[in-house]
């Protein structure tokens, strides 16, 4: 699965957080608004019911029951009032028959009320109605599914009523109101639409501002750091992280720039340090002054007649030509897994772990330098000396400046052989020859006195070397 980019992650987190916040705010606001509106509705209803209760009671106390009936009927025409009824405690509709009228007349001992026209009967029987009769207290019921509100209001047989209705009961009946709350929900819906719009616009603006801000302060610096590191990985040490702030990312950018600078310096430094030195530094972590003995093959390559060349040519050309010759020799050494120990003027000292590779390398070094001569007409050639045996390796120099060097008689002899070799000639010592039986064609030069050696030594001019891979002689 492809990983999400940090830019996408941050933008997603910002947008999701904002979306969540907006939803929560919207929910809380809507709920609060809904509760407030319903509460306001409830307050109005409570006040209206109390007023109606007082009105009906006063009308009834004055013996005007038909007016009370008409009042209740007319109230139903008011908007949002779906139903208003007065029920007796048995659940039948009040004023649908003459029962109450007859009881009142009987209680008063005279026919005070005439039998006026009655209204049709209907009944009520539900838990809320029964609960109101049981507790003698009003009850409000919210019917959310149909967006209505019911209100059950007990009509109490207060002392003023008892003269006509008797005192054998506490509740005379229940006033029932059913109101529509659609207008309330419409208000809520409209407010929701408005709020949602405001929040969406605000959310988009805030998201955009946040994303731009995060892009500038976090995303861009991180991507810059990533891009710079990638460029450094490809070898571009000129790349630098653009630092535009002093915050943690700015500090990180600065530190990375310093690190790149350090890498660049080390990279350039590595050109001046032999691989052996690098390996030893890596392996040990600390510089040891003690030496060690190791069996190695040492190769010396020296440019013939370079002094004359340098006298006859301008300095720029001299340096350019020398560098070109040293460069191809160094590349050849590297190709054959050897290690340039040092450049000494126009000479190269390299070390190898085996003799055959060193001779092979020498052969190709000569070919490379000849190719330069063919191309640039330098007229320069190299002569190469190779010796092998036990050498001493160690750090040589002062505490502040050390050089990891290979020293010993093996090195000296290799150097002398190089000095003796004519252009395009490879001279190898007896010890090298012993390891190359059958792999080289040589011409023995016996009992030669060389500088720095008391005894005479024999060495060999390499006339051909076998290419093991291609099974043919190279001459």
């Amino acid at each position, binding site marked *: 699965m492809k990983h999400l980019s940090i830019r996408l992650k941050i933008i997603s987190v910002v947008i999701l957080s904002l979306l969540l916040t907006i939803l929560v705010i919207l929910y809380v606001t809507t709920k609060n608004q809904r509760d407030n509106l319903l509460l306001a509705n409830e307050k109005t209803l*409570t006040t209206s019911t109390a007023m109606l209760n007082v009105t009906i009671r006063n009308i009834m106390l004055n013996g005007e029951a038909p007016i009370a009936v008409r009042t209740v009927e007319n109230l139903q025409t008011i908007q949002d009032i779906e139903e208003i009824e007065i029920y007796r405690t048995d659940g039948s509709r009040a004023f649908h028959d003459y029962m109450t009228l007859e009881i009142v007349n009987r209680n008063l001992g005279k026919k005070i009320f005439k039998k006026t026209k009655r209204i049709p009967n209907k009944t009520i029987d539900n838990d809320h109605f029964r609960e109101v009769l049981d507790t*003698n207290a009003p009850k409000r019921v919210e019917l959310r599914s149909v967006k209505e509100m019911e209100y059950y209001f007990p009509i109490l047989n207060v*002392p003023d009523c008892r003269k006509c209705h008797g005192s054998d009961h506490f509740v005379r009946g229940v006033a029932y109101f059913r109101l529509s709350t659609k207008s309330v929900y419409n208000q809520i819906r409209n407010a929701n639409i408005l709020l949602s719009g405001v929040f969406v616009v605000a959310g988009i603006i805030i998201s955009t501002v946040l994303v731009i801000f995060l892009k500038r302060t976090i995303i861009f610096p991180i991507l810059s750091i990533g891009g710079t590191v990638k460029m450094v990985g490809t070898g571009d040490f000129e790349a630098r992280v653009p630092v535009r702030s002093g915050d943690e990312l700015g500090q990180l950018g600065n530190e990375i720039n310093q690190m790149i600078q350090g890498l660049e310096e080390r990279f350039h430094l590595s050109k001046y340090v032999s691989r052996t030195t690098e390996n030893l530094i890596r392996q040990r972590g600390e510089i040891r002054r003690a030496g060690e003995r190791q069996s190695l093959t040492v190769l010396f390559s020296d440019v013939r007649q370079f002094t004359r060349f340098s006298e006859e040519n301008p300095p720029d050309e001299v340096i350019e030509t020398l560098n070109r010759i040293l460069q191809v020799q160094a590349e050849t050494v590297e190709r054959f897994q050897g290690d340039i120990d040092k450049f000494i003027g126009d000479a190269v000292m390299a070390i190898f772990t085996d003799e055959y590779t060193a001779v092979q390398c020498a052969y190709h070094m000569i070919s490379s330098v000849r190719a330069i001569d063919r191309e640039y007409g330098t007229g320069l050639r190299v002569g190469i000396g190779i010796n092998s045996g036990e050498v001493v390796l160690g750090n040589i120099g002062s505490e502040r400046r050390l050089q990891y060097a290979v020293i010993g008689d093996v090195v000296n002899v290799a150097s002398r052989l190089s000095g003796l070799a004519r252009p395009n000639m490879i001279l190898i010592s007896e010890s090298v020859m012993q390891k190359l039986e059958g792999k080289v064609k040589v011409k023995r030069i016996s009992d030669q006195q060389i500088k720095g050696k008391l005894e005479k030594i024999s060495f060999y001019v390499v006339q051909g070397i076998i290419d093991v891979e291609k099974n043919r002689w190279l001459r």
Partner: protein
Amino acid sequence: MRTRRTLVLFSLILLSSSLFLALFGKKKFDPKPPLTVEEINGKALYRRFSVEEDYENYPYWPGHDGVRPGQSPHGDFHQIYVHPYLYDKLPIQSSMAPEGSIIVKCNLDTEKEIKVFTVMAKVKGYNPDAGDWFWAKISKEGDVLEEGKIVSCIDCHSALKDNDYLIIHKLERGK
């Protein structure tokens, strides 16, 4: 060092537990002896249910908890607290509330804020003709507005004489 850290941790746990209990723990209700004929008056009754025994520790009538719609003369909404002397005896087959019964009715306005307390207290020998109830109307600040054998209260509640003048809950019914 480790012992000291454990001690600090233990103290913190103890402190936070005490704080939690102090803030949210239910206080143990300790009812006072019923008010007598000699002691009863509006001030004493107010002190009893609001100071000596916080009425909010009283239970509601069974099935009639919280703020409920009300009606005149008791306000648009009400909350009714019943003294444990009465509540704990429910159901009462004799339909007679025991001595020490107190019913605190918070009369609330349309904002559901307390306007006034209307209170009934059963005091043995106080008014044998009307159930020995002492009636009081007390402002939320504790000013006694009406007290004693209030005729309007007795007249209205007398319609439920069979239930010892109590309107909301039938005494012979359980909790």
